[in-house]
């Protein structure tokens, strides 16, 4: 359930985005999506229209639409709500994507832990088939499109689109080299778009209400609304729909958080915002997030928070590339050294530098973002961390 009043996903004034889209030419759908300024809701913020246009332009016998429902970022649970309550929008979005890029098959890569949703989702797909919103000649438009659901097996890295594709193909979940990008060489080597659940869910809304309406929401570089999964030290944890540009202070007020010391935006791979930066905005141009917002109050030990994150990455790195496989372990080891008061400032600085190298030298987004928390917490909470260790 969405906690606050929903605008984007308010069903009352919502028309039929799918039939609107199917009445257009695929090119016009692509343009509409591009004009809306919709960016990927998984966190990376790649312009959805551009991605679709690249896939549409690729010349291939087959193309695929993949919905990334491997919601694995610690502190994110907004896709679960969408899949539970708004799966019709998600699937409609996938059909529209298939129509726009010229694909006939879509896959939902469903997080293994969400297998309890499988039956419900399958039922929804079956319902859509009986309503001729899925299958052959959808709504008499001539479009053939169907959707399969595949379950993940619990690897965080499979949320990365190329690792997801590898996993979908039955291989070990490891990120691929890019370029080539999935829009050219994706699932089984065919052009593939991989979008987040929330991105797909936004598509029918844009199709029914138009890109101009969508452009009125959010900031100039971050159009629309965003679902946030807010958790941690607050009274009203839950999933909220907020306009882009909302500040941390406003978010804290929304959930009635008190004595907040820090807010982790973007999950374990995100940025730890200290108190003096609470006027920053949630948007692609400032604090980007796939949805995870974790609130820490004054009682929390930031070193333990960080250690928890790093333990997560040491375990969840796929292990193929050096910076991520060993780097995360070295960062965790550094934290353990700090705990034992055995870490010199010189070594800590070296670790921060290592983190910066990991951010640019790792093969995929996992390793590139895993040092974010380390670097931001070490920069912003250095005094707290070291005063504690020195006092014993």
């Amino acid at each position: 359930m969405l906690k606050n009043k929903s605008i984007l996903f308010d069903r009352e004034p919502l028309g039929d985005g799918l039939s609107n889209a199917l009445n257009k030419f695929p090119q016009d759908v692509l343009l509409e999506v591009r004009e809306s300024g919709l960016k990927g809701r998984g966190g990376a913020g790649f312009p959805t229209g551009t991605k679709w246009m690249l896939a549409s332009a690729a010349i291939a016998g087959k193309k695929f639409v993949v919905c990334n429902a491997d919601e694995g970022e610690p502190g994110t649970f907004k896709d679960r709500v969408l899949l539970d309550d708004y799966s019709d929008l998600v699937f409609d979005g996938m059909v529209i994507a298939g129509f726009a890029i010229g694909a006939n098959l879509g896959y939902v890569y469903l997080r293994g832990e969400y297998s309890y949703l499988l039956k419900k989702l399958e039922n929804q797909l079956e319902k859509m088939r009986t309503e001729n919103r899925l299958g052959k000649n959808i709504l008499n438009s001539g479009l053939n499109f169907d959707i399969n659901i595949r379950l993940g097996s619990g690897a965080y890295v499979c949320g990365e689109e190329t690792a997801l594709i590898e996993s979908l193909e039955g291989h070990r979940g490891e990120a691929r080299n890019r370029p080539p990008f999935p829009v050219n060489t994706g699932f089984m080597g065919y052009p593939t778009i991989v979008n987040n659940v929330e991105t797909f869910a936004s598509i029918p809304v844009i199709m029914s209400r138009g890109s101009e309406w969508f452009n009125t929401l959010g900031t100039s570089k971050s159009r629309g609304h965003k679902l946030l999964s807010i958790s941690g030290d607050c009274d009203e944890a839950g999933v909220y729909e907020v306009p882009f540009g909302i500040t941390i202070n406003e978010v804290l007020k929304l959930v009635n958080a008190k004595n907040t010391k820090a807010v982790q935006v973007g999950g374990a791979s995100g940025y730890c915002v200290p108190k003096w930066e609470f006027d920053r905005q949630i948007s692609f141009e400032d604090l980007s997030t796939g949805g995870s917002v974790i609130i820490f109050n004054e009682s929390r030990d930031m070193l333990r928070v960080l250690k928890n994150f790093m333990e997560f990455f040491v375990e969840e790195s796929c292990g193929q590339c050096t910076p991520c496989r060993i780097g995360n372990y070295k960062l965790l080891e550094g934290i353990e050294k700090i705990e034992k008061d055995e870490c010199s400032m010189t070594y800590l600085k070296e670790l921060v530098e290592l983190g910066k190298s990991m951010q640019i030298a790792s093969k995929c987004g996992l390793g590139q973002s895993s040092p974010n928390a380390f670097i931001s917490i070490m920069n912003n909470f250095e005094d707290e961390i070291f005063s504690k260790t020195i006092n014993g």
Partner: protein
Amino acid sequence: MEKDKLDNRAPVAQKPLVYPKVDITEIGALVEVDVNNISFKIPLGTTILEACRLNNIHIPTLCYHEDLCLAGVCRVCVVEVEGMRTLQSACTFPITNRIKVHTTSEKVRKARHHILELLISEHYGECYSCHRNGNCELQKLAKEYGVDSYTFGHVTERRHKIDRSSYSVVRDMDKCILCKRCVRTCIDLQEVGVLEATHRGYDTTISTFLDKPLADVICINCGQCINRCPTAALKANDPSDEIWEAIDNPQKHVVIQTAPSPRAAIGEEFGLGAGHSLTGELNTALKMIGFDKVFDTDFTADLTIMEEGTELLMRLKKKLVDKDESVMLPQFTSCSPGWIKYIEHFYPEYLDYLSSCKSPQQMFGSVIKTFYADESKINPADIVTVAVMPCSAKKFECNRPEMDDSGFKDVDYGLTTRELAQMIREAGLNLPALPKTHFDTPFGDASGAGLIFGATGGVMEAALRTAYELVTGREVPFKNLDIMPCRGFDGVKQASVKLKNVLPAWNFLEGVELKFMIAHGTANAKKVMEALKRGELNDVHFIEIMACPGGCIGGGGQPIPTSPEIRKKRAEAIYSEDAALTLRKSHENPYVKYIYEKFLTDGPCGHKSHKLLHTHYTKRGKYID
């Protein structure tokens, strides 16, 4: 040997890197690229690494290998591409539009340093107690980047047990840096698939099926993974201690046979470029080390041709004249022990297609411990036979339980080129500078046909030189006896020779077009076997298969590194040695004639040779308990 080559002993890292100039004018569209502010044109789709190598710009690599598919996992080759937030791996990044690349910027240098230091922190042990000391790519990079301390610590205690279960390959995962070259070699180059990464993150390790010992999985012992391992995580099972012991024991008569490929490659271990055969020098070295007799495996290669050629002609007769349906054609060669284990695991239902001939190594062993022991009046129990091979699978082969037809273990030790080079170094000999001497008699004279066994297609060429002449009474109709369709490095080659005006004894072959195929590398063997399965090879008579890319010259016991260029040069060395010989046909080898007169008196494929020179195979299958 030229002097400059001998003196060129500088560490590889200090040598200027010169890559072969490639003619790029004939290939597709060109695109301009700026590297370190110097612009040049390269074919569209060239990777940054290739582009830089073509223009003598050095980029360090670890997981990249010319023979293998791309991985992009070590990240040592990262470079800065203007306009991209993150660094890009040069080995995987194809250039499709004009980009500006920086290979030496601060970000790049820092990242490479960090990556190297991370790898070193997890790399167990010290260089001086490592058999790859001096030929280790990680060590070389550490030197290149001036790594002088363990910034992120260092592993000082073992975390993995060394897997010594296999006769051929030893795995030491404490030395592994997870570049996955072995995985890609096994699954992609050889299509065997014994090794794969298991576990995740920091716990990632390269493992076998259910982490079983290498001896208990479907490893074919080809050792190609060893050749491509940048560190000492993989090595061959080294018997040199036992061999030294035998040499030092006056009771033992130690006989060594040397295969053609090690002779064409061992110079690389002593600072020579690829493509120098050191046959005569090696003979001297082996005698100096203390081997009692130094023989030439080419002799039994000639013997193999007599046996295998006769076997083929007999099969043809049975099939064509006697219409015997139990006879299987095409006949496959059986010289390559890696190929034998491959077919035993992957195509056990096709073992009847294999020639029953032992490999030259094993024929030699049984001849030494019977005929040679008799003639020289030495108790075979006191004879130790050593085989210098380019091969790790030969170690497994000589330990097969059925290889004891002489009444003893036919071949006691299989020694790789690398291990022999180590013995020679240890003996204080500078191999390239030694005088040349000849092999010992009686098994020291061999034909060029036996010699070219070392390169892919060589067995076929040797067999044709003999079989054609036996059947027609004339030499093969190729200039200088060079059967060019057998040569070269195409994965699968196919050709034919028409038999005309045959001798009366072979009337049934009149007009027959003898069709043959050659494949090297088990990935290509797989293609051939699948074609056979589909019934597409019913008209083919003879197929040569070697487990290793390039044939024996690219074997798993050969000097490291390997590359298509190096293998080509080794093959050239072998072919030019053959061309320089006067004796170039197996059946003309006087010692071959001699052994059939004196010992194997009932002729090729006769009763006695069947006992000593032929063998049988084991249906292994893919599933092992």
